[in-house]
């Protein structure tokens, strides 16, 4: 076999791979830098649901109105979690106080989740009908799906089969 030919073919292959990889990385970084340069939280909504400026302005208004409520809920939940941790600290059993804190935390989470879903519904109504439906379905899938996954994994696990302990 001709050594020179083999060297040429291998060299060409190497150059080809290097060209492909370099152009891939350059384009990827350039795109990531320019597309995500905006620090706007609503950038995803504008791109994904192709919102017009007027629609985006309405969504932004709703978003800005919701954010302080969300922050308040987050603070309340965080405070309740700390209270629960304090109630559980050092205890070998679930005390009545801890149980009460758990119930309060649960109620807070329900309120927060309800408020969040209400906000998603409002935002979806500010979008064109089809995009609004898609947005609402996507947000419900993402925010509620997490809990569904946990519940499903628990019900599938043999250690959590109720009635078989």
């Amino acid at each position, binding site marked *: *076999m*001709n050594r*020179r*030919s*083999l060297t*040429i*073919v291998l060299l*060409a292959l190497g*150059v*080809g791979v290097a*060209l*492909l*990889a*370099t*152009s*891939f*990385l*350059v*384009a*990827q*970084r*350039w*795109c*990531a830098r320019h*597309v*995500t340069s905006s620090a706007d*939280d*609503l*950038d*995803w*909504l504008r*791109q*994904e649901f192709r919102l017009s400026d007027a629609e985006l302005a309405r969504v932004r208004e709703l*978003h800005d109105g*919701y*954010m302080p409520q*969300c922050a308040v809920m*987050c603070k309340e*939940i*965080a405070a309740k*979690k700390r209270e629960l941790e304090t109630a559980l600290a050092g205890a070998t059993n679930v005390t009545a106080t801890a149980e009460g804190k758990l119930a309060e935390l649960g109620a807070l*989470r329900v309120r*927060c*989740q309800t408020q*969040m879903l209400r*906000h*998603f519904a409002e935002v979806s109504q500010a979008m064109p009908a089809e995009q609004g439906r898609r947005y609402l379905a996507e*947000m419900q899938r*993402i*925010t509620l799906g*997490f*809990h569904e996954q946990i519940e499903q994994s628990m019900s599938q696990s043999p250690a959590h089969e109720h009635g078989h302990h």
Partner: protein
Amino acid sequence: MRCNHKCRVWFDSSNTGQRCSNNTTTIMNEPMSSPEETKLRTLLREARPSAELPPRFQENVWRRIERADESATFASRASWLDALAAWILRPQLAFALAAVLVLAGLVLGWNSGERSARSEAQARYLSAVAPNTLH
């Protein structure tokens, strides 16, 4: 007609008559042989040495055939590589190939960058409206 240089072979009458017909070995000018001549011929034929085949002759023949096949394959592979190398070294083709690779890399990179940017933007929105405290 007789051949002039006494090869005792007839001219090929169908072939323009310019040369001896060497393909034919039949001696046409001889009369049918006498019994002595026949005997002599038989003796000569029998006296012709018949060389004995060396040991493992057939096996060696096959081996040589196989080796010849292998070297032919090797040669064809080498010629294929030579042709490929020559093809790559054509400047127009090399530039075209390089351009295609760069273009493919740019398109793939752009798609990948766009996908990751979109997923980052989605994560940013979600972290704003659905904080982790819920999970």
